[in-house]
C-alpha cells in the first residue's frame, strides 16, 4: 500500500488562500496547521489573528479563532490564556501590528511572561495597506511612504524584535527563522512546535519571528524574494535562537498559576 507523504493538514480548512502568489503567510499558515495536527492539539487551540494581510486567517485555520484589533492580539491572547490556562493560545501578527501600533501590548505580554505563543511575520512592510514603511523596513528599503528609501535621520532604524524581546525576563523562547528555503521552512516548523511545547510546559512567553516573503510589495518575483531574504534581510535580521529556556527545568513554572 502506498504511504501518504503529503496531505492537506486537518487544522486547515479547504478554503483557498486569498494571499498573493508566493506570499509567506501561506507557508506559515500551513506550518502552524501541521504542527497543530502533529501535536494533536486542534481541539484545545485558540488563535488570535491580527489586522494585517492575515486578517482572514479564521477562514483558513480550523481551530477556534477571534480576530483582534490592529496590534492588540497579545492583550486578547493574554486574557484568553489566563482564563483557559490549559488551552494552547497563539497570536499571529505582522511587523506593523507587533512592532508599531501594538508594541506596548506585545512587549508587556512578553515581560509578564504570558504563557502563549506569538507567530510574528516580519515582511518588512505593511502588506495589507499597500506597502508602506513598517518598523522593520530596512535602511534604504523603498516603500510607498519611503519612496527614496528608509532614512535613519527621519525614519529611525529597523526594529529588531527577536533581539529586544529575548532580553525580557518573561520571554522563555525566542527564535528567528526564514521561510525562504526548504531548510528554512523546516526550521520554522520546528520552532513553531517548540513554541507551542513551551506553553504546554508552562514556561512562559514564546515568539517565533519569521522572515517572510511579500513579493507584491517588494515588487520581486517569488524566487527573487527568497534571495532577498537570504542576501539582504537575513543580514539585518540574522536568523537564530535568541533565547531558549525550554531545556531548563523549574523555570517560571511557578510564576504562572
Amino acid at each position, binding site marked *: 500500500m502506498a504511504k501518504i507523504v503529503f496531505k492537506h493538514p486537518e487544522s486547515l480548512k479547504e478554503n483557498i488562500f486569498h494571499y498573493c502568489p508566493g506570499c509567506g503567510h501561506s507557508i506559515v499558515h500551513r506550518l502552524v496547521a501541521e504542527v497543530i495536527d502533529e501535536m494533536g492539539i486542534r481541539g484545545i487551540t485558540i488563535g488570535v489573528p491580527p489586522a494585517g494581510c492575515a486578517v482572514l486567517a479564521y477562514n483558513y485555520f480550523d481551530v477556534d479563532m477571534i480576530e483582534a484589533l490592529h496590534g492588540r492580539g497579545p492583550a486578547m491572547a493574554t486574557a484568553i490564556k489566563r482564563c483557559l490556562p490549559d488551552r494552547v493560545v497563539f497570536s499571529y501578527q505582522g511587523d506593523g501590528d507587533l512592532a508599531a501600533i501594538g508594541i*506596548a501590548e506585545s512587549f508587556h505580554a512578553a515581560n509578564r511572561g504570558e504563557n502563549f505563543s506569538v507567530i510574528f511575520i516580519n515582511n518588512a512592510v505593511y502588506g495589507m495597506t499597500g506597502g508602506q514603511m513598517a518598523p522593520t523596513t530596512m535602511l534604504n528599503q523603498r516603500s510607498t511612504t519611503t519612496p527614496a528609501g528608509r532614512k535613519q535621520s527621519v525614519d529611525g532604524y529597523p526594529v529588531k524584535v527577536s533581539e529586544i524581546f529575548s532580553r525580557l525576563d518573561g520571554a522563555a523562547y525566542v527564535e528567528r527563522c526564514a521561510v525562504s528555503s526548504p531548510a528554512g521552512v523546516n526550521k520554522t516548523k520546528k520552532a513553531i512546535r517548540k513554541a507551542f511545547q513551551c506553553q504546554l510546559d508552562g514556561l512562559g512567553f514564546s515568539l517565533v519571528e519569521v522572515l517572510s516573503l511579500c513579493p507584491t510589495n517588494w515588487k520581486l518575483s517569488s524566487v527573487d524574494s527568497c534571495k532577498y531574504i537570504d542576501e539582504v534581510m537575513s543580514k539585518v535580521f540574522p536568523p537564530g535562537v535568541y533565547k531558549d529556556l525550554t531545556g531548563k527545568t523549574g523555570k517560571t513554572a511557578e510564576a504562572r498559576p
Partner: protein
Amino acid sequence: MNKVLMSGNNVIGEAAIRAGCRFYAGYPITPQNELTEYMAEHMRNAEGGIFIQSESEVAAINMIAGASAAGVRVMTSSSGPGISLKQEGISSMAAQELPGIIVNIMRGGPGLGNILPSQGDYFQATRGGGHGDYRTIVFAPGSGQELADLTMDAFDLADKYRTPAMILADGMMGQMMEPVIFKKPKPRQYPEKFMLRGAGGGKSKFIRGLLLDPVDSEAHNWKLARKYEVISENETRFEEHRLDDAKLVIVAYGTAARIAKGAIKRLRSHDMKIGLFRPITLWPFPEMRLRTLSATVKNFLVFEMSTGQMLEDVRLALQGYADIEFHGRPGGAVPTPAELANVIARVYEQKD
C-alpha cells in the same frame, strides 16, 4: 441582608464580584483608582478571579474582550482620557457581540481636564463613543444603592443582549460613602455556544471583526440595529420624583440629580411645585415617557455638570411641545443644592 457602608468605587467592585465577574483589567487613573485596587484585592479571593493591571487602557479593553470571548464575566474601569482610549475596543466588542462592563467614573475634561466630578462624557457614552453604527447600554446610577443594583443588572443585560454596557458615574459618586445592601445576583444565563474555548472534537468557531463583503456588513449592521431597538423597547429606566403637581420639571441624572433633589426639597418648602425626572438609563434614553409628560407639564429645566449634552436628548424627546431651560456647570464644578435652588427658583418665577 446586612447594610454595609462603602465608597461608591468599592460598591461597584463588590457588586461586580458578587455578580460573578471573574476577569478585571484596568489602568490607574483618578478618580477611579479605588475600584482598580478593590478588584486587585478581592479578585484574589474570588474563585477563578483574575486581575490584571494592564499596560494601558487600550490593553485593558482588549483584555476584557478576550476574556469575554473565553466565556468569563468581565469588567474594566477608567475615567475621561482612559475611556477615550478604550473606544476602539468598545466599538469592537459591540461589533463582535461580546458582553462586558465598562465603568466610567467621569472627571473634568476635555483633554486631561481635572480629577473633579463632571458629566462631560454623556455624548461619548450615549452615542456609542467609538466608530461605527453601534450603541452601548448606559446606566447612570444616582446613589450607592443604585451603584450596587445597576452594576449587577448591567452584567445581566450585557449577557442577555451580548453587548458592552457602561456604568456612567462621576468622581463624587465614586468617593461618596453610603450604606448599601447587595441583592442576591441572578444565576448567569449565557449559552456556551457563544464562548470560544477550543473546538474540542467538534466544529471550530470564529469571532470575526472585518466584514469585507458589503452584503455581510450591511446585514450585520441591521442585525445590531434591531437588537438596539429591542433594548430601547425593554430596558429604558427612569425615576420620577414629585411630579404629580409639578409645574416645572428638572431633568438631571447621577450626581446632578442628587443635587437637584436637595434643591427641590428646599423649594418645595417654599411651596414651589417642582419635580424631577431622572433618566437611569441614558441609552436607551427614556424619550417616550418624557414626551408623554409634556402633555401635562410645559416647563422643563435640564441641569447637567456639562455645557449641555443630555439637553439635546431632552429636546429630541420633547419635540418642541414644552419650554426647555438649561443650567450647566462644566469642567469639574459642582454646585450646592442651595445654589441650584436659586437658579431653579429664578426660572420658576419667570414661568409662573
